């Protein structure tokens, strides 16, 4: 029997939207609620109008995607939590910069990306001051430690950051090329090129990918 997951509050808004909701079963036969972009736009417009229920619904709907985005960028869960909070603080502060009719996910990811880059710079500088540069976080690839990292993170750890974020947005978050281009302030052609290069790199890193494939066939986490 499949289960339905709802997170947190804001259900009154979600109930109003239920007719436009489509559901998709994930690998564990649970139903994941997917919301068309137009619903997010509607919620965003209501959030700008000061509707708390819409704001809560947005927090519940978008946070998991943003959190995964941060996790994929080699952040620890604690870092991802901090980055998510920081992103929402910024989103709240600059919510007037969203204009109705524009792709809302691209807007969210544009801000999240800015927060992540700022955080990365801050971390690098702090580490440089403490002279501990050699202890950078990007060790998953080098050590090949599958036990510590989750599958997706290990798979994407073989890629440079710019390619990783594009693959995450395009393949994991299900954004369109146009939305990814907007979120990364790049042209669609540049995004396509990054995806092409990322795939090339993944094809050339068979040990990581094959290990993941083997683990998925065996069913180990």
């Amino acid at each position, binding site marked *: 029997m499949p289960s339905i997951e709802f*997170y*947190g*509050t*804001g259900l009154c808004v979600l109930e109003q939207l239920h007719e436009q909701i489509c559901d998709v079963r*994930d*690998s564990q036969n*649970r139903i*994941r609620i997917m919301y068309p972009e137009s619903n997010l736009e509607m919620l965003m417009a209501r959030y*700008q*109008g*000061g509707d*708390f229920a819409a*704001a*809560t619904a947005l*927090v*519940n709907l978008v946070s*998991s995607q943003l959190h995964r985005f941060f996790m994929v960028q080699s952040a620890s869960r604690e870092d991802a*939590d901090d980055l*998510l*909070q920081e992103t*929402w603080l*910024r989103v*709240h502060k*600059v*919510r*007037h*910069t*969203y*204009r109705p009719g*524009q792709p809302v996910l*691209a*807007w*969210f*990811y*544009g*801000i999240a*990306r*800015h927060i992540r880059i700022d955080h990365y*710079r801050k971390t690098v*500088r*702090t580490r*440089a001051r403490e002279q501990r540069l050699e202890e950078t976080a990007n060790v998953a690839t080098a050590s090949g430690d599958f036990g510590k990292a*989750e*599958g*997706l993170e290990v*798979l994407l750890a073989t890629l440079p950051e710019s390619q990783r974020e594009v693959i995450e947005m395009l*393949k*994991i978050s299900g954004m369109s090329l146009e*939305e990814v*281009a*907007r979120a990364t*302030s790049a*042209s669609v052609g540049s995004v396509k090129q990054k995806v092409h290069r990322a*795939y090339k790199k993944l*094809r050339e890193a*068979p040990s990581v*990918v*094959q290990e993941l*494939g083997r683990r*998925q066939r065996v069913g180990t986490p």
Partner: protein
Amino acid sequence: MTDREINELLKKAAQAPHEVDPALLQGIAKGIESSLRPVRPLPSTWVLTTGLILICATVAVAGAARAGFYGFEKMNLLERGLIFPLLAILACVAGVKFVNEMIPGSRSWVSPGVLLLISSVLLVSLFALLFPDYRTNHFFSAGLVCLAVGLAHAIPSALLSWLVLRRGFAVSRVSAGLAAGTLGGLAGVGMLELHCPNFQATHILVWHTAVLLTAGGVGAFVGWLLHFPVGVSRR
């Protein structure tokens, strides 16, 4: 490993549930609630761009009016008909670019650096085509004056443009600074074309174009300075 297998792996990874601590989400929602009030979305791109163009045109014309329209009076119809429309088109493009840089998730068709480069190449090409006098009288003395006057109009234009977009949010401050500098630089070049009666090709090619490049560079540098998070050493 084929693309299909990689796609399959990515698809499976994407379908895996990713949960966020409900307490964290509740905390975020609570934080929002305490300061939630209605906000007015930014106007559309064309409204903002029109505002920026008006500011730049006003600064350039006001500066030339104060110093004299000697350059404009000395130009023939062809020169006027080619230089000012080109400056207007480039200013429109730079204005749209600056607006896009100040709004997250905006469409990006060209980077501000490329835009600055294209603008400079187009202006240099047009100046080289229109002004065949290759004498170099008072090259540095006259040139430095033009550079200073151009920048004196470019910087206020960029600052006023930034004031118009102060409610925006630059996801890349260097790019936003570069776009603002380019826009201001075009205002500075516009003012010089209206005012400067020195039609020696080398003077216009080097010093008038230098206003655009310098303003863009200053804008990018200011953006780079602002890029550092508060309280973090730049060492």
